[in-house]
């Protein structure tokens, strides 16, 4: 495909977006059929198809076999400056948050966990695994590791509709102030996609973070898989 053709499909994409905007097409509404759209926008059908494919690849539209293309609802946006697993943040934005606790177990810290938490290998930790839902959509599969010695008795709570961070603050007087994240791409395994109610192999943000309290202790190592088809990360940066 020549670069000239690519320019054309970029233009076609802009025209499709303009059409959607001007017609005020709502999410989950069908777009006109390809042939009709090509006529309305006055573009060659192949060019239009390429543009539509790119929009599908980027999650802007989705296709239902036999029924055509539909406008996607916008992705859930999370500010990169918020902590992973920050229930209060989503709630204050007006989303309905609920969780399903998959497991809360005791285990010995593996090499990776002990490195991240700066603890000896084998230190007992809690492993809390949850699926988090926004407005009923399964979005995040989170596993949090916390040293037992900082929060003895955590296993007595159920974290379905209880905030982990709030519990750490009120019951254990741990004030969390800082978190480093590293964000990568991963493909969901069969087990992970089952938890997230997504097709196997769906892409996910693979986010790993260590959360620190106000005394500088690493209190939590959190691993999160966030569905990339439904979620995006925003940030507003300023000069250093």
């Amino acid at each position: 495909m020549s670069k000239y053709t690519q320019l054309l499909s970029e233009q076609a994409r802009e025209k499709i977006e303009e059409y959607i905007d001007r017609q005020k097409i709502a999410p989950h509404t069908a777009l006109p059929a390809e042939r009709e759209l090509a006529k309305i926008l006055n573009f060659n059908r192949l060019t239009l198809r390429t543009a539509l494919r790119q929009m599908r690849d980027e999650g802007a539209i989705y296709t239902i076999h036999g029924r055509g293309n539909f406008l996607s609802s916008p992705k859930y946006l999370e500010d990169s400056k918020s902590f992973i697993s920050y229930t209060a943040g989503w709630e204050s934005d007006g989303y309905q948050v609920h969780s399903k606790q998959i497991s809360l177990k005791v285990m010995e810290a593996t090499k990776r966990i002990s490195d991240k938490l700066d603890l000896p290998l084998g230190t007992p930790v809690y492993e809390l695994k949850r699926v988090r839902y926004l407005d009923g959509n399964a979005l995040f599969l989170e596993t949090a590791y916390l040293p037992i010695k900082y929060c003895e008795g955590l296993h007595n709570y159920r974290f379905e509709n209880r905030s982990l961070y709030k519990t750490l603050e009120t019951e254990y007087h741990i004030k969390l102030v800082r978190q480093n994240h590293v964000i990568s791409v991963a493909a969901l395994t069969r087990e992970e996609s089952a938890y997230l109610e997504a097709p196997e192999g769906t892409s996910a943000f693979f986010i790993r973070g260590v959360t620190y309290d106000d005394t500088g202790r690493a209190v939590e190592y959190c691993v999160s898989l966030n569905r990339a088809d439904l979620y995006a990360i925003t940030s507003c940066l300023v000069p250093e």
Partner: protein
Amino acid sequence: MYKKIPIYQQLAELLREKIEKGEYAFGSSLPSEREIAETYELNRMTVRKALDLLEKEGLLVRIQGKGTFINTPKIDTRLDTIQSLGKFLTQMGISVTNRVLYCGRRKADYKFSKIFGVSPEDEIYQIFRLRLGNGEPFALEYSYVPFAYINDCEQYDFKVYSLHDLYDKHGIVLMEDHQQLEIVTVHNPQAKLLDLPEGGQVFMLTNVSIDKDGRVIEYTRSYHSSKKFSFSTIMS
């Protein structure tokens, strides 16, 4: 109680750590499937599944007939400070080159008149570039800037210069960068340009830069090879 994680995932985790710790030198080859199976007393199917997982994550590259190689290390790009990608990579000691795929003037039209707050008849300048670090593709960038802000841009060779150089020259000071990070699929020709397989997954970063007078200066959509990049943030 021990959590029962499938063996292949435990092996993948072990290998991942060894790779990240540098126990297997980058660019070198991993022991063969058979050797790994013997070392850890596992069956080859398990080893293969573990390697599949790591290949999907971009940590390994398997070349038919040659073996399995450790992929080059990922660069952590800070998501929380404004930077020019070129400057950032150069600071890391990586030599940055660019391939200009297209550059030229055009009318803003509907979409960009809204983004820049200009009339659809006003001109914008678009630059499509492939960014390479040490000769390997890192990112594909599609940038748009109102022509009036950088009206001598046609004299610049964007193989060598970046938009940030132009901003400095025109006294444009960027104050805010609104970014949105997504993960999307790419097909050819973009996949090929980024040296990724058809249908590969990449980070797509959409960037709107605003200057100290509140003007929207630049809109850039870029595709970052997930083989080469991860993003990091520090929240405090």
